[in-house]
């Protein structure tokens, strides 16, 4: 009954391993089987089954020797943007389709040092640029909640990780969140998605999209799992100059209720594009919090719309520079042919190796940094960013948390984007981008299914470095939301454990 074991959360499964109810290998095989069964969803770019099996065997001896580490034998999925030593790492790009890093990212190293076992590297939008996981050189990932005839996107850019956790092809997964790339796919796939405060999780070894926004994040089906992975991976890293120096707090302790807690609901998030069902889920979420004893009040985040504009200047600007290293000299793809000059080789290789969306963002980023436009775009965007951060700072003088939708709509159909102009996709990030600009921690929780049976998520946003309090409040909220639904294909194999 291996497939059943895939329904265990990380925390519950680790407890069973400690109890000896099943072995790490048995648990692992349940996911290997799920990955196989979910082949059509295209969740993983590379699987590492062979080494995982070896690790699972070693994990068993550690349990037998009583030298098991905190995550001993926990299978994890890793977004293919974390460099993993001797395991191909592509960032979803043709450019890096043969790139094998000689080193390990800090976050994946910390998890593995704690005993976690890598199941494989999940699909993503190329270089994390996208909100649908359609912009991958390795094909699109499908949302496990899709009707077989009408595939939906899992969101993005960490769509493979979100979908893998939803489809029980992994108990937990790592993603990265630059403008919502963890929170939005979590919402689309009905799982939890957590983006810590900027600087909490090291970026060392994470292939950069936009350095001042990128932050590793976590997908899980249980809040305890989110906290477990976060606490294992977080903390200062001397290899990342932007890594926060402050120490990670002690584990959160449960609260009896939310009395005395103030929740802000931002007025500006009632946008014209906001789906009616999400609006009502949001209101019900606020009501749930009230019932838990919290005070809910309206707040103002006046620069919400401008935040989206600032994000689509700052992120491409940084990306245009971060992706300049892909020149076909030291690694990655070099276009075939007899190149007349170095520049010709660069242009041929980059145009061949990068997909459309990446090229588009590089062009925009180059443009907004170029002479004559710098002040109007890049500098102005940085000022607006400061205003966005100030909006939150002012709000947090009055409230403890902000409650907001994670996305303006439920998962959209595969291919929908191709028919729209590129800004339609960018608009999807309206609720996630401001948090990214301000560098705040935010947790996307699955709240309800809509009428079409698709999950909808809500975000709980906390002040910087307020993870501990966020987890405490979210535990009660999550319990009250009581989201139990599983994707249609998994109904037969029972509820998440």
């Amino acid at each position, binding site marked *: 009954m291996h497939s059943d074991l895939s329904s265990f959360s990380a925390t519950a499964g680790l407890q069973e391993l400690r109890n000896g109810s099943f072995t790490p290998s048995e648990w692992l095989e349940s996911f290997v089987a799920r990955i196989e069964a979910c082949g059509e969803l295209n969740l993983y770019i590379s699987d590492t089954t062979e080494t995982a099996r070896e690790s699972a065997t070693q994990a068993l001896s550690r349990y037998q020797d009583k030298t098991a580490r905190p995550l001993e034998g926990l299978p994890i999925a890793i977004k293919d943007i974390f460099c993993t030593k001797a395991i191909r790492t592509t960032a979803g790009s043709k450019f890096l389709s043969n*790139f*094998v890093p*000689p*080193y390990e990212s800090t976050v994946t190293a910390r998890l593995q040092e704690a005993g976690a076992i890598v199941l494989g590297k999940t699909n993503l939008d190329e270089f994390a640029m996208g909100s649908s996981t359609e912009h991958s050189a390795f094909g699109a990932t499908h949302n496990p909640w899709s009707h077989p005839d009408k595939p939906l996107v899992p969101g993005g850019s960490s769509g493979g990780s979100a979908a893998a956790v939803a489809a029980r092809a992994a108990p937990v997964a790592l993603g990265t969140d630059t403008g919502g790339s963890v929170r939005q796919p979590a919402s689309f796939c009905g799982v939890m998605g957590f983006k810590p405060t*900027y*600087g909490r999780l090291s970026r060392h070894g994470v292939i950069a999209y936009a350095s*001042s926004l990128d932050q590793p994040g976590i997908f899980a089906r249980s809040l305890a799992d989110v906290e477990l992975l976060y606490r294992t991976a977080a903390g200062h890293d*001397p290899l990342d*100059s*932007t890594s*926060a*120096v402050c120490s990670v707090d002690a584990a959160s302790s449960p609260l009896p209720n939310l009395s005395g807690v103030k929740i802000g609901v931002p007025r500006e998030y009632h946008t014209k594009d906001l789906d009616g069902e999400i609006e009502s889920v949001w209101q019900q979420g606020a009501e749930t919090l009230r019932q838990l004893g919290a005070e809910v009040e309206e707040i103002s985040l006046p*620069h919400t*719309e*401008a935040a*989206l*504009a*600032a994000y*689509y*200047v700052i992120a491409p600007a940084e990306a245009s520079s971060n992706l*300049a290293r892909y020149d076909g*000299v*030291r*690694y*990655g793809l070099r276009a075939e042919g007899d190149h*007349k*000059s*170095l520049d010709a*080789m660069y*242009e*041929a290789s*980059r*145009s061949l190796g*990068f997909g459309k969306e990446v*090229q*588009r963002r*590089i*062009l*925009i980023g*180059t*443009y907004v940094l*170029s002479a004559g436009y710098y002040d*109007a*775009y890049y500098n*102005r965007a*940085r*000022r607006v*960013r*400061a*205003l966005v*951060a*100030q909006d939150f700072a002012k709000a947090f003088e009055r409230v403890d948390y902000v409650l907001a939708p994670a996305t303006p709509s439920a998962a959209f159909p595969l291919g929908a984007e191709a028919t729209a*102009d*590129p*800004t339609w996709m*960018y*608009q999807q990030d309206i609720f996630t981008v401001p948090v990214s600009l*301000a*560098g705040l921690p935010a947790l996307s929780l699955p709240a309800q299914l809509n009428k079409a049976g698709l999950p909808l998520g809500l975000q709980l946003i906390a002040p*910087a470095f307020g993870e501990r309090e966020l987890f405490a409040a979210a535990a009660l909220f999550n319990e009250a939301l009581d989201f139990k639904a599983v994707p249609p294909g998994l109904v037969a194999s029972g509820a998440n454990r």
Partner: protein
Amino acid sequence: MDTSTVKKVASLARLRVKEEEITTIAQELQAILGLVDQLAKVKIDNTAPMTTPSAGKTPLRPDAIEANASRVQILENAPQSEEGFFVVPKVVE
């Protein structure tokens, strides 16, 4: 965003844009600029620019040698290398 700007920017970014795609690209980029043009409407007064959410100062490491890659590792992913060098098309100058 006209086609000559697209060409100029593409050349700065070392991307090759096909002649037949330039107009489409120009339109797409124009649409994105339409979105970001909201920036112009924001009253920014004397707000200081924010580059990063990190509040601190850059950390400093001790001046010590710690090799984290061998010559072989540095060269093993290279599309073309010879005699320990990376090899590129001839640069004239």
